[in-house]
């Protein structure tokens, strides 16, 4: 399983060229600095989990990567495209980077099929037939092929989140961002969503996952980032991350979880 390869000195997963890299990004809301200089990079095929206390800037960081939030200084490069950039660059990046939200954000007035085919048709120029075929294939992959003609409101939370994953995958992105994909789910539905993400990891998808599921992060991540107070406090492979954290904040955070 790619997601669990042994982890010393880095560089064994995917290529060496970073797919996503951030250079000292700063982001403020008014006078409140949410991100205080974040630098990191993610290589193609890597699975990176982000954990940390609520309010630490995890969501904000994730949303700067596809330009849903602008940044005040620093820069982000995604597959050679640079942010901050113009609208064209923004759209280009968003086509290459899928995002899955905590609250699913499915289009409630559209069938599951239309939810998935809208972007491939309007943003990639696929024909309706091609998009349809792709939608059905992806739904099969996340195990809900039979729900294609339902509306989001008729599905369980776990099913909705799997539709959201299929919707993002339908753009055939180079990377996927997940913002607490299981936090809004009832416990019995968490596994089906995590399984879908595990399956993605097996196929070598580049992923950045904000999560509170520590055992999942430990199992799936090549690297784990710890965010607190708008800073990237720790960037480590799972072994040292959970084993012997030297960072005071991380130690406090982990001990509170137990």
């Amino acid at each position, binding site marked *: 399983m790619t997601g669990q390869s042994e982890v010393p000195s880095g560089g064994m997963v995917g290529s060496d060229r970073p797919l996503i890299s951030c250079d000292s990004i700063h982001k403020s809301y008014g006078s409140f600095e949410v991100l205080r200089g974040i630098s990191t990079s993610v290589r193609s095929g890597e699975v990176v989990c982000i954990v940390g206390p609520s309010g630490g800037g995890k969501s904000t960081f994730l949303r700067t990567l*596809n330009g*849903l939030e602008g940044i005040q200084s620093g820069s982000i490069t995604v597959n050679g495209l640079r942010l901050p950039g113009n609208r064209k660059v923004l*759209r*280009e*990046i*968003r*086509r290459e*980077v*899928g*995002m899955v*939200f905590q*609250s699913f*954000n*499915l*289009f*409630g*007035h*559209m069938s599951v099929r239309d939810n998935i085919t*809208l*972007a491939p048709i*309007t*943003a990639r120029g696929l024909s309706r037939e091609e998009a349809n075929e792709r939608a059905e294939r992806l739904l099969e992959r996340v195990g809900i092929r039979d729900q294609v003609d339902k509306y989001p409101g008729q599905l369980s939370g776990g099913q909705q989140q799997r539709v*959201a994953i299929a*919707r*993002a995958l339908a*753009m055939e992105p180079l990377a996927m961002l997940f913002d607490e994909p299981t936090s809004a789910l009832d416990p019995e539905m968490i596994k089906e969503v995590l399984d879908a993400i595990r399956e993605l990891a097996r196929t070598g998808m580049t992923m950045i996952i904000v999560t509170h599921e520590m055992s999942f992060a430990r199992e799936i991540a090549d690297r784990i980032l710890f965010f607190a107070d708008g800073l990237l406090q720790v960037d480590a492979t799972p072994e040292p991350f959970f084993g012997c954290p030297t960072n005071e904040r991380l130690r406090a955070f982990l001990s509170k979880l137990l």
Partner: protein
Amino acid sequence: MDFDLHVIENGIPLLMKGLITTIWVCGASLGIGTVLGSVACLSKLYGNRQQRLLANAYVNLFRTVPELVVIFWVYSCLPLFLNVRLSAPICGLVAMSLYAGAYLAEIFRAGILAVPRGQTEAGLALGIPTLHIWTAIIIPPALRRMAPALMGFLTELIKVSALLSTIAVGDLFYEASLIAAETFRYVEMISVVAVIYFIMIFPLSMIARYKERRLRAEIGH
């Protein structure tokens, strides 16, 4: 009291003509008002400082000044400012459109704001072009939300159109009052006009109420 049906019968051609004018003015001002309202609404939501200021001034002005005053102002003052001659129906149409635009702007705005931000964000995150974010993601649910208010406004618009008779636009009420003045059969003519307005407006308000109930059930669910 004798109720002379003959007067009504003889008045049918003129009443029809008036009815058509009423429907035409309402339809046209709804159309122009939709354009004005969309511009004002988008300016308020996404405009820069000046655009927001201008849109706010427009909306507040026409939602505050009585419709009758607006109609008379457009009829008697606007031509002086523009230094042109405007026919009564054109003045009526302009006044009604300005009025409709101001109200529709607020209805549109409420409808758009009722669509959760996450819907737009999901569209943006997928790289969907702006045009399709509007036509496929924002407008359909916004329209559903505002359907009751839109129907309600349409009933108001039809009622307000009767005021156009004061500047001699040949609408339904104007034609009826002309016949009444000529024949001295006020009871018949004004009654029949009341019935015609009722027949036009009542179904609309029923639809509005039905949509309102359905929406409540949907949202509450």
